């Protein structure tokens, strides 16, 4: 997860007796997974998380709660099984170890055990329905393909990954400050994006309409292949949420990193894309003229983007510009390049299934590890532990027979620890408090009812 872990020696195929015994070819298959699920996957933590305190230890616990959660497994050969449910941690763990799913998805908590859904559907009253589900977000870097030049498609590098970082910052801040949510888990999706799980009780009980409203609150990008300008920010000033995102995150990132790293203004092809976004053709051609002239001027490559951006800003924001639309154009350009692009459909529906944390991505072999939103600048997707790397580490530590702490010996240990301490423990504390207080309230109520 951090750079230190990288020093533990990953794919050096040194032809040396001892190391060759530990070297694990870079593969993804059921055998590897079996070991992973056997020794590294944090089954108990997943159970604790998804029970939200209903682990049976308190009289007010809802013992059916965990059993009403849907899981789905994708097995080898693309076999996909839905509506899996488990009544205890052991059941969950055994099923995973036995089936070795290539992917585990987590669905909603239904009104009844998903395994029994057919019995209920027949009553015609539609009682098989989701009742709780985390508020989730899915951000995928392929949605940014039109604004990154370093990679395309499934590739990700350190030049474009920061787009995910700033998306995390913008959304995380809004979820906490604006919506008042506290228990938020960000997870690397294993290849090219991030997922967000909002686990507060209030979030889990949101209706589809409310989820859609939150997704729309975050939505700014509205375009298709036909429109040049996909972001439109009408109004004399920005909504406080957009203004904060701009000044605290987007502007700085765009000017300091994205402009120079992606060379957004250095060549004609690239700066045309930005000029297209300026609604006033005369302004655009004024800048075009200037830049075409300067093509041959000797400037160091790093400067040209920043210099031209400054020119653009001074033209657009000058006092001469009468229409609001022109002045706002600067923000619109920054937003269109950097503002988070969410997959709306994922967030809007309670029954959408989302990949579980700590799964292994079949194409990259990387583990879906949590990301610390407070340190997301440090996260480097290119050194996230892979399945083969972890197995290699296990091999090396093989002499120590301490079954309980095997996870700790590998690079995964740090991620699991992070998951436990920063996310799980505060969440469980809050859940237990909630269960406790509602139990006490009910007790009080019944006491009051009894007293004359």
């Amino acid at each position, binding site marked *: 997860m951090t750079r230190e872990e990288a020093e533990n020696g990953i794919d050096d195929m040194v032809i040396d007796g001892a190391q060759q015994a530990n070297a694990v070819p870079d593969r993804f298959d059921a055998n590897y997974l079996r070991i992973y699920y056997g020794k590294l996957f944090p089954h108990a933590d997943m159970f604790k998380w998804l029970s939200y305190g209903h682990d049976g230890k308190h009289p007010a616990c809802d013992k059916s709660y965990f059993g009403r959660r849907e899981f789905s497994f994708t097995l080898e050969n693309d076999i996909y099984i839905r509506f899996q449910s488990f009544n205890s941690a052991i059941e969950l763990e055994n099923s995973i170890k036995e089936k070795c799913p290539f992917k585990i998805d987590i669905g909603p908590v239904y009104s009844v055990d998903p395994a029994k859904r057919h019995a209920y559907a027949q009553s015609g009253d539609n009682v098989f329905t989701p009742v709780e589900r985390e508020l989730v977000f899915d951000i995928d870097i392929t949605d940014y393909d039109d604004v990154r030049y370093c990679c395309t498609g499934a590739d990700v590098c350190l030049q474009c990954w920061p787009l995910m970082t700033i998306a995390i910052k913008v959304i995380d801040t809004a979820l906490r400050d604006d919506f*008042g949510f506290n228990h938020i888990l960000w997870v690397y999706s294993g290849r090219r994006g991030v997922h967000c799980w909002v686990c507060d009780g209030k979030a889990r009980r949101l209706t589809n309409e409310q989820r*859609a409203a939150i997704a729309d*609150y975050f939505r700014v990008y509205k375009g298709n292949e036909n429109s040049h300008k996909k972001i439109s920010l009408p109004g004399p000033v920005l909504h406080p949420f957009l203004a904060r995102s701009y000044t605290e995150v987007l502007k700085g990132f765009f000017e300091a990193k994205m402009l120079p790293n992606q060379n957004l203004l250095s060549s004609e092809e690239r700066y045309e894309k930005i000029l297209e976004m300026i609604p006033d053709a005369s302004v655009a051609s004024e800048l075009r003229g200037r830049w075409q002239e300067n093509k041959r001027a000797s400037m160091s490559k790093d400067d040209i983007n920043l210099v031209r951006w400054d020119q653009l800003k001074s033209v657009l924001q000058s006092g001469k510009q009468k229409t609001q639309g022109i002045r706002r154009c600067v923000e619109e350009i920054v937003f269109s390049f950097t503002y988070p692009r969410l997959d709306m459909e994922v967030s809007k529906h309670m029954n959408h299934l989302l990949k579980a944390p700590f799964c292994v991505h079949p194409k990259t072999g990387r583990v879906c590890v949590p990301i610390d939103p407070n340190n997301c600048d440090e996260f480097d997707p290119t050194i996230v532990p892979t399945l083969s790397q972890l197995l290699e580490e296990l091999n090396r530590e093989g002499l120590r027979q301490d079954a309980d702490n095997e996870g700790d010996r590998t690079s995964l240990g740090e991620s699991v620890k992070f998951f436990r301490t920063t996310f799980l423990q505060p969440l469980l504390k809050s859940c237990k408090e909630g269960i406790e207080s509602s139990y006490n309230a009910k007790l009080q109520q019944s006491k009051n009812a009894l007293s004359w």
Partner: protein
Amino acid sequence: MEVVQSNRKSSSSKVIVSTLPLYRSAPPLEVRLEDFELFAMDRLRVLKGISDGLGRGKKPEEMEKLIANLWKENMRHPQANEEANKDVISHFVLRLVYCRTEELRKWFLSMEITLFRYRFRLESSEAQRALMSEFKLPYKAVSNAEFECVKDKLGQVARSMGQTLAAADAIFYKVPFEEVPELVAGRRVFIHKGYAYVAMNQVVSLVVTQFRSYLSKALILTNRKWTSTVREQEMDRLTPIVEALCTSYLGPDYSQANKVGEISLKDIDQIAKISFPLCMRHLFEKVREDHHLKHGGRMQLGLFLKVVLYLHDMICLQHLVCVFECIVETRNQLMIGEEGVGLKLDDALTFWKAEFAPKVSGLLQCAREIAVAPPSELPATPAIAPNSARDGRNSARDGHNHDFNVLFLAAHAVEYWIINTKLSLLIGECREDYTPYSCQKIISSTPGVGDHHGCPYRHFSEENLRAALLRMGVSSRAVEDVMDKVRNRHYQLACTLTFEAVHGSSCDAGINHPNQYFIDSQRIVQSKVDDVNSFRIFGSTVWV
């Protein structure tokens, strides 16, 4: 009966009484049969006025004035409780009228909500708060101290919507964000730590949401009750009136100017499936799919559609005429036997048939000619003299003049429909050749890559043409006949055969013009509808 009355402010010079009812329960009053219809018609005038205003795209300030005037003209009564009675009674009568189909319910709901929204805005803030508690909305007003803290942000939100923050009496409510999803989705509120700060004018939308949800459910219940019990019970009394009321001149309103390209495509979907010739069907499908047509297609389809819409108004008019005949006939049936009444109605009917109906049939004749005439030849003035209907009213006896009210309203509605649709045709860009294309012209055009105009019988591949014909509902045997004509390059004959196959009747004149196809198709369709219509058509039809 529940009528909300706010606290009377003794300190101010005028007494503030809120008369905004929530229509929670039907009034247990006895209503005279005449009042039943009278009150309903008056309220209908208000709702229709609102519908027109919205259709013409009036701004909120204009709507406010319009609604205030409509209410004043139609619903006011010197005694406050009489006014309140009329308000509630008329609403419930119209509920009966408009609960019967999904479309009617939607229209009624939409107009009542708009009416409620504007009336709510006009109420004092005490009255508004009282209404909020009626709806059991548990929102707390933001304290002064807290307001000072968030004032900047609230101002920012207001300005982001192009508004200003009314400083002095700025009342905000602190509401859990989940309860105002619309406002959150549109970023129209400041949200902090899970609470949305909702301005007073946004509170309206909260109240309106409650009102909408309640009324929508009530309408469905009313419909159930009506169809199951009341309709049968009232067969002799209320049912005919109710059924007549709801079919009166309140179909989809095309009276606003429809420029080529701004047509609401969904509205004519149904008609397109039944009555468009293949060339226009194809273009129409493409523009629905791609939201785009190249120039050739735009011209061919657009000109066709412009006349279609005009004609559709004419067809609505036709239906309108038939319906009014039924209303009068129905009243006739109800009142025959009562002294003196029968005579008056006969007079009314005679007058109407003499003055009104031929003008409508004349209009339809015009429509056929307009379809093929250049704009310069369009008649300049509407065929109906606006005052003729009103003259009729002046000669009415005292007392029961609501028959004439009905006729007057009908004439008024017809008149401005005609004016608006004709004007819109004339206004629409007086450029060169704005005649809709004839078959000859369409056949001779040459669509290129990415074009969808031209005559499909000429330009489609055999395979595509077969598929398109089958989709239109042409039988496979008829398809063979059509294909035979196509191979011999008789494209218009092919289209004629298609017409005959689709409509199940012969077309002797042959097809020469897409608009002709359309008119002929609608004639057949309308006549079929009229057959199964529960209203009897009195006398001969005025169909051309």
